[in-house]
């Protein structure tokens, strides 16, 4: 098994006739993701790489049947409307790669998603992949590189950095260690599915034997992971790396979430809390494969 997405998952691409949307739809399809439909208002009836395009999600569902996941390749100023459409149409999981989405749009959409029970990954996520089963988003690049970077296996990977999501998986794959599901949760200060929302899924997933986590300064996400571990809501081994030990207070490092403000959110505090909760905290990203090998040998 895996979490969030698997071989049978049906996927919709919102914004499929755009440059990015079309290209990513093609790459997802090449990875054998079941991309069943695309949406671009006003372009219904067209097709993109053999994928039928509809004007609205309801129309698409009427034609192709139930759709579980939608991925949005829609620019920031328009993304709120597209997200609301997906939530109202009853999609279970919406993945939002869009960068620079205004935070009040995020708040509004998350408030609505909570009412409707929709899970949102992102914004500013690279995507999600359950290796050799299903890929949604921009993760992996071409089919060849996706196959080179990821392979099926026992490690759940979650990261606040898109690039590091791939890097950690690739380091593991090179050592012959595969991944159950790899999630780029997005670098923004408020995201739809923080680490603490995903860990219970990895806890339940039988295939996942341990989790690799890339955290960074800012937000309370890593602290809440520690709380989950202390409260025994997550009991599998967890290996964590936290970026930003050298960061000065008040300076933002690219991601809108990556800023130490006042006394909260330093890398030092996060590392201490995670270690106290029983996580293995490593000092270099390149230490992931060894730390995880040791865990898997013991299991």
């Amino acid at each position, binding site marked *: 098994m895996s979490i969030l997405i698997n071989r049978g998952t049906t996927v919709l691409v919102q914004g499929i006739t755009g440059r990015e949307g079309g290209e990513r739809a093609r790459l997802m399809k090449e990875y054998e993701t079941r991309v069943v439909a695309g949406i671009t208002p006003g372009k219904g009836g067209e097709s993109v790489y053999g994928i039928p395009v509809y004007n609205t999600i309801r129309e698409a569902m009427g034609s192709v049947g139930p759709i579980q996941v939608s991925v949005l390749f829609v620019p920031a100023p328009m993304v709120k409307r597209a997200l609301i459409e997906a939530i109202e149409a009853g999609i279970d999981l919406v993945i939002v790669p869009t960068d620079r989405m205004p935070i009040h749009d995020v708040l509004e959409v998350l408030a609505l998603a909570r009412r409707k029970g929709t899970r949102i990954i992102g914004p500013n996520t690279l995507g999600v992949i359950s290796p050799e089963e299903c890929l949604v988003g921009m993760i992996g690049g071409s089919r060849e590189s996706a196959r080179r970077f990821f392979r099926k296996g026992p490690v759940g990977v979650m990261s606040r950095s898109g690039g590091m999501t791939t890097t950690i998986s690739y380091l593991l794959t090179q050592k012959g260690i595969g991944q159950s599901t790899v999630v780029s949760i997005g670098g923004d200060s408020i995201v739809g599915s923080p680490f603490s929302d995903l860990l219970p899924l990895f806890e339940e997933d039988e295939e996942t034997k341990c989790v690799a986590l890339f955290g960074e300064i800012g937000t309370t996400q890593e602290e809440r992971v520690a709380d989950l571990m202390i409260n025994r809501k997550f009991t599998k081994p967890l290996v964590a790396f936290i970026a930003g030990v050298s960061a000065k207070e008040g300076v933002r490092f690219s991601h809108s979430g990556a800023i130490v403000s*006042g006394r909260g959110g330093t890398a030092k505090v996060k590392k201490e809390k995670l270690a106290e909760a029983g996580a293995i905290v490593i000092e270099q990203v390149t230490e992931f494969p060894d730390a995880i090998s040791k865990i898997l040998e013991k299991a």
Partner: protein
Amino acid sequence: MAKLYEYQGKSILKKEKILTPHGILIRKPEEARYIRSEFPQGAVLKAQILSTGRGKEGGIRIALNPDEAYQIAKGLFGRVIKGNRVEEVLLEERLDIASEYFISITLSDEKKGPVLLFSLEGGVDIEELAEKETWKMKGIEIDYFNGPNEKEIEKALFEWRVTPAFVHKWLHLSKKLYHIFRTYEMTTLEINPLILTQKGDLIAGDCKATIDDYALFRHPELDMIDIPRDFGHPPTFLERVAWEVEKEDYRGTFYFTQLAEVEEGHGYVGFHGGGGGGTMACLDQLTQNGLKPACYCDTSGNPPASKIYRAIKIILSIPNIEGYLWIGDGVASQDLTHGARGLVKALREMRPRIPIIIRLVGNNDQKAREIVLKGIEDLGLRLKYYTEDKTTEFCIRRMKEMICPS
């Protein structure tokens, strides 16, 4: 995020009918003499900086007459408080203070929404209060659509035994602040102190507001914002140039901030990474290995060659750097040949004599390497180019050796 100065935040409060002290912004010490006509009872002089804690550093002073005001202003202008040079001072009327409170609306990543925080003890270091005397601070989750819940606020205030008239005023203020928070797409709106005057008015004694920079495109009325970025210091010349590049070109991300005042002979390097988290992790590794980064620069999200070319030129323009290190520490999904072309153009124009180390891994990395090595072969640069064949740590050590040959 875009932080507003106190006087800018207060101008929004005033526009939205929240009481603020009568105030005048001055830009020269001589203008402090205005207090003769405007503030016969004396005035408060407040240094306008974006950092907190100016009070403890003498950034807030009371003047009773024009001469005193002038002398204080002379001392304030040009002074550096918490890393910020004072260029503007706010003159404000003195209030008859009965009590001081704290109220703020901020975002909770845990609740994924806004929260209202308040305390009947204001004017103090609120973080300290929240840490040491937690019970004195009330926090209420705000429903994004419906705003702060009146019953919850009433319940919290009830414990403090305040009058019904006060409760009414507090509720009104809370709702109004939330309205402002939403309308101007803020991420923080904090009034500390919120002053209750002897007459019974609630007046905003200070205002710290932060606007979401991703939403600025739909707020032309907020044109007072200079550069919507958190540098932790006023923007430098190069940071301004970098911001101009980013502002004009939405393709990919270019993030640049200077981390130190670079002195010659101290071994500072211009540091360039790719991807938010990876660049920061690499920066950590640099510092741990004793290399001093002059800047943090991230080009990611598939920017075109022209944008990366500008980024590299800006890095190489930092005076006194002794090396340039570009490490895409992750496995890049962006097409690295764009970066390679940008690099060649920048190096051909600038012909730097400092050692250069490049390590780029990911999409099209072999082709990128060829482009660079071929493009600069006639320049005689001190450049080393690596891909997966060498680790980041190796590159950092190599850079150190090249800067200070042992």
